């Protein structure tokens, strides 16, 4: 006796619009990816030697620190907060690394010290936000001033890094198939992205992050530990900024108080372009990574063009920001009222 063959019910042939086949929460990320492909495609058509593996690898090499910082920023923005201090914390990290290395500390201790400082600054801001009800904007603004100020206290001048371990890590390259080389910074950045995605989607902490962003009072009433998460995201952001600062010091091999000025805006722009809602609750770290790549491609395009001045980068980033916000606005409007 054989079971009747399972026949799939005849598919309806009516065309389903794209928006209902793909969950709308993925749309911004997909749109970002399309923009990335388009800008990169435009570059490869226009310039010889643009569409090579090394140019893509360079996108990652040049922006590894920004990827790490943007990942931390994504956590904060997902809870509906904002972290303006990241640029200054990056600068402070390069400065601490350079100064302590010059003082003869071993490399591992330097790395620990830098990461601990970042996490500690983040903790301070998180406590201000959660415990004392200071608005995230103001609390992290104070953090921004503090971190930048501490840089100047350490040294007003640029300090170069001559430590052997740091130089080895900085200058080593990993050969990939296809004559493409990447640095350890890229590997670290990708690990951070993977860990962040794991934490956000597969742990209780991550789900609480989304819940707090959706509605903090509901999350509290559900019995979630919102306080821990609200402080935690700032610690994560501080830690990521410090790690980003380490990558940046590998990249520049120097510590300087004026490193990474305005980086917070780039990070926020990358997160927004990556499809994360600033109101919180919606977004993915992968989106932020693609967002960073879009910004990086724009910069690469402008440097390939050669005749265009650097200020066009700012204008283009502004226009991109605008386009993505408008897109998000459209998607949010189409959704039924939450």
């Amino acid at each position, binding site marked *: 006796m054989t079971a009747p063959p399972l026949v799939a019910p005849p598919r309806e042939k009516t065309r389903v619009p794209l928006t209902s086949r793909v969950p709308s929460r993925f749309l911004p990320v997909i749109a970002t990816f399309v923009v990335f492909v388009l800008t990169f495609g435009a570059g490869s058509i226009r310039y010889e030697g643009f569409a090579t593996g090394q140019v893509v690898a360079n996108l990652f090499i040049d922006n590894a620190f920004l990827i790490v910082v943007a990942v931390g920023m994504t956590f904060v923005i997902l809870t509906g907060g904002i972290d303006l201090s990241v640029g200054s914390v990056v600068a402070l990290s390069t400065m601490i690394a350079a100064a302590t290395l010059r003082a003869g500390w071993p490399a591992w201790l330097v790395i620990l010290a830098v990461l601990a400082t970042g996490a500690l600054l983040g903790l301070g801001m998180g406590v*201000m936000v959660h415990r004392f009800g200071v608005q995230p904007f*103001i609390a992290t603004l104070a953090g921004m*001033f*503090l971190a930048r100020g501490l840089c*100047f*206290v350490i040294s007003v001048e640029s300090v170069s890094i001559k430590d052997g371990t740091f130089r080895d890590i900085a200058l080593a390259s990993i050969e990939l198939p296809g004559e493409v080389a990447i640095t350890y910074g890229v590997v670290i950045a990708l690990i951070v992205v993977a860990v962040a995605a794991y934490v956000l989607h597969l742990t209780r902490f991550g789900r609480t992050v989304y819940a707090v962003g959706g509605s903090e009072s509901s999350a509290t009433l559900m019995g979630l530990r919102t306080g821990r998460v609200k402080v935690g995201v700032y610690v994560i952001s501080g830690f990521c900024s410090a790690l980003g600062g380490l990558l940046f010091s590998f990249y520049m091999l120097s510590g300087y108080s004026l490193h990474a000025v305005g980086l917070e*805006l780039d990070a926020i722009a990358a997160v*927004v372009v990556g499809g994360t809602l600033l109101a919180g609750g919606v977004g993915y770290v992968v989106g932020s990574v693609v967002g960073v790549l879009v910004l990086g491609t724009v910069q690469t395009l402008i440097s390939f063009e050669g005749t265009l001045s650097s*200020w*066009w980068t700012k204008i283009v980033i502004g226009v991109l920001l605008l386009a993505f916000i408008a897109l998000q606005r459209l998607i949010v409007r189409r959704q039924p009222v939450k």
Partner: protein
Amino acid sequence: MTRSRLLWPLLALVALLLLNLVFTPSFFALRIQDGHLFGSLVDILRNGAPTLLIALGMTLVIATRGIDLSVGAVAAIAGAVTCTHIATTGDAIGGMALALGLCAVLGLWNGFLVSVIGIQPIIATLVLMTAGRGMAMLVTEGQIVTVNNDVFAKVGAGFLVLPIAILISLAVLAGVALLTRRTALGMLIEAVGVNPEASRLAGVRSRTIIWTVYVFSALCAGVAGLMIASNVNAADANNAGLWIEMDAILAVVIGGTSLAGGRYSLTGTLIGALVIQTLTTTVYTIGVPPETTLVFKAAVVIVVCLLQAPRLTRTFRVPVPQKAGA
């Protein structure tokens, strides 16, 4: 309520001034020379004028539960346009009018994004903050445009017993105070800040009001940009008004205006702006090494914010989570 909110910033201001007096006994000395008033206090007022002006515009924006991050970029654009115009035609009045007209357009743009498209203010103005400096550099072609024009120099560096810059700022303060506190406008602005939808249903033209405050903020930023450029007789697209939006927002917050919107205090903003500027001056006069200015500033900001923090006074009660924005 208002008094208690203004108490800490006022005490901070007094403490800073007394600190100066201890270190420099002649700090409060004023003298008149060539019909101009000179002295450290006058310097504080003069250097604080652009921040105060921008903070005034920011106060109204924040009262509607918004924020305007683009003011620094707008100030840079105003300076760039004016100086470029003066450098090519020598016409200062026309240049300033052109710049302010452009600023009004930029304010309209911000207001359009916020009130019509409904984008969050912080991100809507971030667009112009990022792109604006690029535009200013486009105008100056990446150069620092220096000008030499007597009329223009008056705006930032001129004197009418007191520095003209602070007179402009105070005049705007008085104008805004009259316009919003003697008419219903102030209440309408606060109503929009509390709940834009409810106030629209109650018959308030929320959209027009939001639009107006952004235009006003951009105009204030424009005038401040003129002061900054005129003070050094040059337009520096990169550095003019850099981080002034942060100073202005700090001034507003120190003055007791909540970023959650719905209430504002112009007096508070005045005190806040003075605290910020006095702080900077203090660092120079008491001989703190200039490189620690920012740490000092951060410390004061943190202390003032924590003292004002709503939860510090009621830590024994269960904290009620608040959700600002929608």
